């Protein structure tokens, strides 16, 4: 259950990598910081609602309403950051036809910049996250501890992913994204405004990363400037595992990685969890570089 919960968060973040990669063939290394901003925004929103560490957990309508408010704030914060980042850093590079190496180095630069900005503003220590909801065990299923917060994380992540999948498969803008991913030049010839599509993919990826930030905060109850690094790398691993550029692949890859990691730390010990995840990444890239479900956003059809 821990594996699935964590995997669902990985999957939400992975979608951001996948969307941007599908359209631009760019690994947006700074996406992990978009997620980090989502965690911080959630924390600030929780504080703004007047909830502090040690306050009694909320229930019922109050809980639902505050959860929704927090998540919306986090989604907006991350989404806006992602869009600004695209406009300020990536678009000028694209205009100039810069090599991919330049884009990747830019991404690393942004990532460091954002991390350090938060480190300097909010310190390098872990910030506690007030408990919003009671973490009560619902029941046990095949030895797994099914807890309220885990169910909430899993269900909301799945709902968001379903919404994204429907949007990309059904809507006109979603068709524009898929067309651009498959063949951007032809898409332009069909009247697709490529710049707007790219902005949209950054926005969507940002929104989901923001939501992932809220869920992460809810589950782990911690925020820190470098909190994005590991989930970011693992979400990328998940995206590659499922086939980068492939929306459903990100879901499958995220859940699978979460489970694998959980299993790995059970067998090898928790301190080897990350080594295990990195090893999985290397092995996947070696033997199946296009992932389990294959590359291409275009094929993620309804």
């Amino acid at each position: 259950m821990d594996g699935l919960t964590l995997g669902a968060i990985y999957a939400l973040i992975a979608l951001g990598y996948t969307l941007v990669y599908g359209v631009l063939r760019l690994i947006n290394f700074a996406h992990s910081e978009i997620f980090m901003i989502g965690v911080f925004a959630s924390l600030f929103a929780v504080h703004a609602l007047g909830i502090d560490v040690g306050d009694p957990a909320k229930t019922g309508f109050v809980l639902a309403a505050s959860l929704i408010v927090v998540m919306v704030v986090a989604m907006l914060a991350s989404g806006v950051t992602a869009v600004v980042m695209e406009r300020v850093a990536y678009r000028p590079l694209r205009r100039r036809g810069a090599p991919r190496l330049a884009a990747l180095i830019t991404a690393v630069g942004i990532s460091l910049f954002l991390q350090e900005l938060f480190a300097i503003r909010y310190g390098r220590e872990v910030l506690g996250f007030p408990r919003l909801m009671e973490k009560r065990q619902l029941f046990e299923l095949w030895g797994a501890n099914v807890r309220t917060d885990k169910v909430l994380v899993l269900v909301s992540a799945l709902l968001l992913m379903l919404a994204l999948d429907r949007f990309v498969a059904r809507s006109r803008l979603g068709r524009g994204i898929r067309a651009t991913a498959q063949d951007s030049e032809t898409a332009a010839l069909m009247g697709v405004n490529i710049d707007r599509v790219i902005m949209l993919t950054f926005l969507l990826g940002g929104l989901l990363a923001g939501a992932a930030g809220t869920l992460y905060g809810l589950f782990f109850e911690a925020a820190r400037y470098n909190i994005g690094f590991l989930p970011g790398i693992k979400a990328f691993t998940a995206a590659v595992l499922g086939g980068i550029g492939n929306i459903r692949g990100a879901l499958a890859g995220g859940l699978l990685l979460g489970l694998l990691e959980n299993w790995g730390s059970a067998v090898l010990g928790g301190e080897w969890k990350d080594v295990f995840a990195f090893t999985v990444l290397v092995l996947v890239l070696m033997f199946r570089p296009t992932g389990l479900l294959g590359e291409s956003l275009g094929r993620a059809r309804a």
Partner: protein
Amino acid sequence: MLLELEDVRVHYGKVEALKGVSLQVDEGEIVTLVGGNGAGKTTTLKTISGLRPVTSGSVRFDDRPISGLAPYRIVRLGLCQSPEGRGVFPGMTVMENLEMGAYARSGRGRPALRPDLERVFGLFPRLAERRNQAGGTLSGGEQQMLAIGRALMARPRMVLLDEPSMGLATMLVTQIFDILAEINRQGTTLLLVEQNAAQALRLAHRAYVLETGRVVRSAAAADLLDDESVKSAYLGGDVEAGVGEGDGDAEGGGDGDPSASSVP
């Protein structure tokens, strides 16, 4: 003039791909660009559609300068292109591909597209049969039909066609060219780039001959079709002349003569 290029120059890095191309297409015409590989035909079309930046010169569509406009804006003005290699979206169904064609007419749902779909399915009944099949699984000929049909979905005033005969069997080429003539009769202006120059010249009203990035001739299509030098250089040389028309009538006796490859 519906479309007018004036002294257009285009560079790929430092290499000049178009060295001052000027051409005009009038409303209702079919004009063709012929020339060898690397002559700049595809570059010309990409430049008109805004995919390649113009170094100097002007492109005007309906008396409006369009060089420098983003490709999607040009499409919205009614100037569409069916690109080389067809550009069918492989992961989308035939229907979705056609809907992509109407992308520029924003905000219209499927009902608004019905007349256009009917028109395309009327021209290409095969597409109607395969409407739910993924574009990538179509045969070459079906993909070409889809590419042309998709360009029509935008209700364009003019369509640029890049090598519609590429990779197609003879029978299909004839069929496609017949439909192009029909589309033109229904009121759409066509600018056609073709390697299969003989075929294109038979369809077109006028033609431009492109050579290493510049226009070296422009004339009525029929005149070029009969022109010996054009024949030897662009119509498949002596092969076409010797076999296609006279069947063994070895025209010009140019077999094996190096001078046959040159145009004065």
